[in-house]
């Protein structure tokens, strides 16, 4: 096993799957010789050539539509959008076409495709290049939504996504690309709908996604010094969502805090909180609390952007409040 960055782990996954299955093609803007906006596809053009690593014009709608059509016709495309924000241009192809074809056609067609999109704030990229949009995708039946938080998960979940017979939205976080961790050299898969208990704890359950998993672990570390033991759970895929693991944890800790970077209102955390309220209300000692971004577009200026992104301090404060 080697230490790799999150970015290298995704690159690894793409390369190994492309070596295994010649039906896999990549599509996206500047993914060829340029290696992708953040460098994720570096080297793949040289190895697989331009028939399999296809630089597209700036036409997101055509990219997602082509991936959908290619999947319907037997390929296994992996499309990259430079920033998740640009899915706005292509949303119809994703949610009205790709997500629904299997169902609308009575289960007679499969759409095995992956759409990789980096999201998240922290680079000063402002309102149209920094959003976290997982709730949009989670709300669409027919899509699977993956949010890896570690290099290990990134590779395993990507390989699972490529082998899945459904359209999978694979949400990377820009600030995670440089983070490192142990990644097996050989291909491996991680099942969708299986949460990762990142830290065991007794007093409170924190469910966090993507980059916020690291922030939550940091907060949990600090809270441990105060004698508060937090269990940190990363669902890894929010559709399907492993509510079993979350509910089991809540039954043990009797308290739930949900953390995500996306704006709190209408976020994925609302769904998790609601399901826990429906299924495990009697086990709760305190109201469920969510930490998310305020209801505002992502600002440009550094002090504002830093105030936008939930940090360990806010998580700690929320936990202390919950415990009265």
């Amino acid at each position, binding site marked *: 096993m080697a230490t790799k960055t999150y970015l290298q782990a995704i690159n690894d996954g793409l390369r190994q799957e492309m070596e295994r299955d010649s039906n896999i093609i990549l599509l996206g803007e500047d993914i060829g010789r340029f290696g992708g906006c953040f460098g994720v596809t570096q080297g793949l053009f040289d190895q697989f050539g331009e028939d399999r690593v296809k630089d597209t*014009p*700036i036409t997101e709608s055509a990219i997602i539509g082509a991936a959908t059509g290619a999947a319907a016709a037997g390929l296994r495309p992996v499309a990259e959008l430079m920033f998740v924000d*640009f899915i706005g241009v292509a949303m119809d192809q994703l949610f009205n076409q790709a997500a629904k074809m299997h169902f609308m056609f009575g289960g007679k067609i499969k759409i095995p495709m992956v759409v990789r999109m980096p999201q998240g704030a922290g680079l000063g990229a*402002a309102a*149209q290049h920094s959003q976290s949009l997982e709730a949009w995708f989670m709300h669409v039946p027919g899509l699977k939504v993956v949010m890896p938080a570690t290099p290990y998960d990134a590779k395993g979940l990507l390989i699972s996504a490529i082998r899945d017979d459904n359209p999978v939205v694979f949400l990377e976080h820009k600030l995670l690309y440089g983070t490192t961790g142990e990644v097996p050299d050989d291909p491996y898969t991680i099942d969708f709908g299986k949460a990762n208990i990142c830290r065991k704890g007794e007093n409170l359950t924190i469910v966090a996604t993507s980059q916020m998993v690291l922030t939550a672990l940091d907060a949990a570390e600090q809270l441990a010094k105060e004698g508060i033991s937090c269990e940190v759970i990363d669902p890894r895929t929010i559709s399907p969502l492993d509510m079993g693991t979350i509910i089991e944890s809540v039954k043990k800790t009797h308290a739930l805090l949900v953390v995500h970077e996306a704006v709190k209102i209408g976020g994925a955390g609302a769904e998790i909180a609601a399901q826990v309220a429906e299924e495990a209300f009697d086990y709760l000692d305190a109201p469920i609390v969510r930490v998310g971004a305020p209801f505002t577009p992502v600002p*440009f*200026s*550094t*002090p504002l952007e830093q105030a*936008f992104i939930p940090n360990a301090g806010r998580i700690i404060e929320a936990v202390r409040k919950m415990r009265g």
Partner: protein
Amino acid sequence: MSLSNEQMVGMYTTMVKIRQFETRVQGFFAEGKIPGFVHLYIGEEAVATGACAGLRITDYITSTHRGHGHLIAKGGDLKQMMGEIFGRTTGYCKGKGGSMHIADIDLGILGANGIVGGGGPLANGAGLAIKARKEDNVAVCFFGDGASNQGTTQEALNLASAWKLPVVFVNENNGYGISCPTSKSMAVTDIADRAAAYDIPGVVVDGNNVLDVFEAVSEAVKRARSGDGPSLIECKTYRWRGHFEGDACVYREPGELERWVEKDPIPRFENKLLAEGILTPETVAEIKTAVEKELETAVTFALDSPLPDPSDLTRDVYA
């Protein structure tokens, strides 16, 4: 379209201003003083300058991610622009927008835009408002060769033509969308050819010749003002810097940049004005010094301005 000497000197000054502005931004970005991304306009100054030279303050423009030049050419305030790029409260957007989102509605600037192809439909909307109010203003949509492949741009061209909107589509063909050369992103050589599909005029001009751009855009503006509908002007140019600051430009052919630097729009125009006696070496030096001073003031203003307070975060979400 005949230009007065004063107008020509004004155009020259604008180009110098854009160049100097961008050079300063480049320096500050390299020093790590500017957050986010910046996309510089160096080398393309003649396009914005020529296109905006004949516009009124009541005319609209929509800009792109590479917007500083458009904003300056439309009369944008350098202090507020610098303030925004540095993320200060005195900036055009109070530090909330940054380089990619600067706007000034009083000057008809409907914003730089982080979404490639986002501007065309907006320009049409401005055109619609102009028509509804029975004005003879126009809206100019700046967009890149890459943006011309977006559905939004083609949809906007179609709608503008079908509704005879007073919109001028000014294409800045600098040869690339990030790393992708136009030869790989489209089968046509001239984006202007696409005008035929919408039955509107499509004109190709030397985008490094400010007077050629001015002539072509002014003709299209005249047509739009008189109710004859949109046009598509393609300006062939080149961006000297990488797509964004920090781009290593691996996609460039050797010698390519140098060939374009020889066609630098600023000395070209300067030499012409010198030859015609409209400028003298002394006035050239004076203009450059004055621009330097103006920029110095803008930078000092920006750096002396406060950063926003976190309590401003949720302000302005709704009107």
